[in-house]
């Protein structure tokens, strides 16, 4: 019963077909509250499709998604997001012509101005962009744009934050900073991380799910994943 109460999101036989090609195949997935879960798999494994099904960007062909105890399978994207799912894109998606402040402000809804301001400054302080609050976001460096996107995700105060390859294109120093931030986030929210950088995955994920050809082939802590022959064959290869 305790395990059930800890569940934040789970799927039942979640599937997606694209004109005969099965991108996600009867996936039963669970993620608990305040967990950092990494979703890994080779290119084309169906990771982005899977998280897109979770947040409703893509409609499922079959199966259900339950979030925070409710069936959200038929809810449109904006309602799923409003119910507490945050999502950051694989390719940086910010509002380039708006300032850093305005970008984060757009992430916060139904709050009074004073409260909104305090959240904006708090998250910008956390990601280290406080000194760039009035800067046009399109003028930020790539690394800072990724941080801004993270700040936008944080400012939404989601129960579940989905990060799609957040460290892509970042320097080693920026990645180290990023790892600390994710660890920090997990104190107040659940993080589902799609990541190719194995160093990031192994160092911050509480649990790892491996997807291959749209199916979960392995799930567990980093040791069990590293020693799983199926995973070694499908993905990790010599890295394990």
């Amino acid at each position, binding site marked *: 019963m305790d395990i059930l109460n800890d569940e934040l999101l789970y799927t039942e036989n979640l599937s997606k077909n694209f004109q005969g090609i099965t991108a996600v195949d009867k996936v039963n997935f669970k993620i608990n509250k305040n967990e950092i879960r990494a979703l890994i798999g080779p290119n084309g494994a169906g990771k982005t499709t899977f998280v897109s099904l979770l*947040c409703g*960007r893509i409609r499922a062909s079959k199966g259900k998604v339950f979030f925070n105890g409710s069936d959200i399978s038929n809810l*449109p*994207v*904006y*309602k799923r*997001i*409003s119910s507490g799912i945050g*999502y950051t*894109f694989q390719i940086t*998606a*910010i*509002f*380039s*012509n*708006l300032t850093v402040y*305005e970008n984060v*402000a*757009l*992430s916060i*809804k139904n709050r009074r101005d004073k409260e909104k301001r305090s959240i904006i400054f708090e998250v910008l302080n956390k990601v280290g962009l406080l000194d760039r609050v009035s800067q046009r976001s399109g003028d930020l460096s790539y690394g800072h744009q990724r941080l801004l996107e993270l700040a*936008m995700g944080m400012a*939404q105060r989601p129960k579940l934050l989905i990060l799609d390859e957040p460290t892509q294109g970042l320097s080693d120093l920026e990645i180290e900073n990023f790892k600390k931030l994710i660890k920090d986030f997990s104190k107040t929210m659940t993080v589902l991380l799609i990541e190719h950088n194995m160093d990031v995955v192994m160092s911050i994920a509480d649990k790892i799910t491996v997807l291959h050809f749209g199916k979960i082939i392995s799930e567990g802590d980093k040791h069990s994943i590293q020693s799983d022959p199926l995973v070694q064959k499908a993905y990790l290869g010599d890295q394990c």
Partner: protein
Amino acid sequence: MRKDIILHLSALLILFLLEILGIFSEYHQGNFARILVLAAYGVGYNILFGYTGLLSLGHALFFSAGLYASGLSIYHLDYNIEQSLFLGICISALISLIIGFLALRTIGVSFMIVTLMFSQIAYLSILYFGSITRGDEGFVIQQSSRVFLSMDLSNPKIRYYSALLIFSLCMLINLWIAKSPFGRVLVAIRENSDRALMLGYNVKLYKLFSIIISGTISGLAGACYGILFGYVGASFAAVSYSIFPLLWVLIGGAGTVLGPLIGAIFMFYLIDYASDITDAYMIIVGVALLFVTLFARRGIIGELRFRYYKWIS
């Protein structure tokens, strides 16, 4: 913020002073009255295109909806100005809602084509139902019908002030939208609609609201045009009247409050002066537009905002 509001109110004050101090000649007074009503139409277009990023090629439909609804109600039903204006606004709002609902099933180029098609349907319907609309030739609203609160709207002075009032109202609505959280969401949709959706905004509903506001303002401008200038004709529903506001907004600055006014003044006088020089005036207009595009690709106000005055709305 204060500077911004002062700038916009100053622009309105200048337009008021130009008339009250008698700086305008009768010719320019007439031109400016026309420009102000057309700029109000441009403001409507700007809300959809400049702020929300939806490029419509059929806005003449909304302009002519207001124009014909108010004009026909005066012509056939003897409505007074208040009633006809109210009807013009309501009909254009209703048409915007219907067209928005249908056109938003498409995006990008398809949206442009669909809006163009609806506009052409309206244009051809005006021609087809000539017994009611007087077709291509249009009809005149008699001077005796153009009286509002005992004021003769055909009087050039009153017409100018009325046009300025209509434009001021539309411009202030635009300014309020630009500064409101609603306006920020529209800009977010323009910048990256996928991201706006993933922040939990009902993008389709916001776009629909934007079309309704834009269409209603355009319809208001259309209704006022007929009432102030006394003529209702099918040419206002033609495709050129969907292209004009796009040009005004692009030249003045998309997503800027003063852009449609500056663009409308620029285009109006450019055509006016070029046609004095040659019959092939569109060559001059084309070259001038080319230079504006090359050296101020964000439009006149847009470029000023980008380079020097970031606070301009």
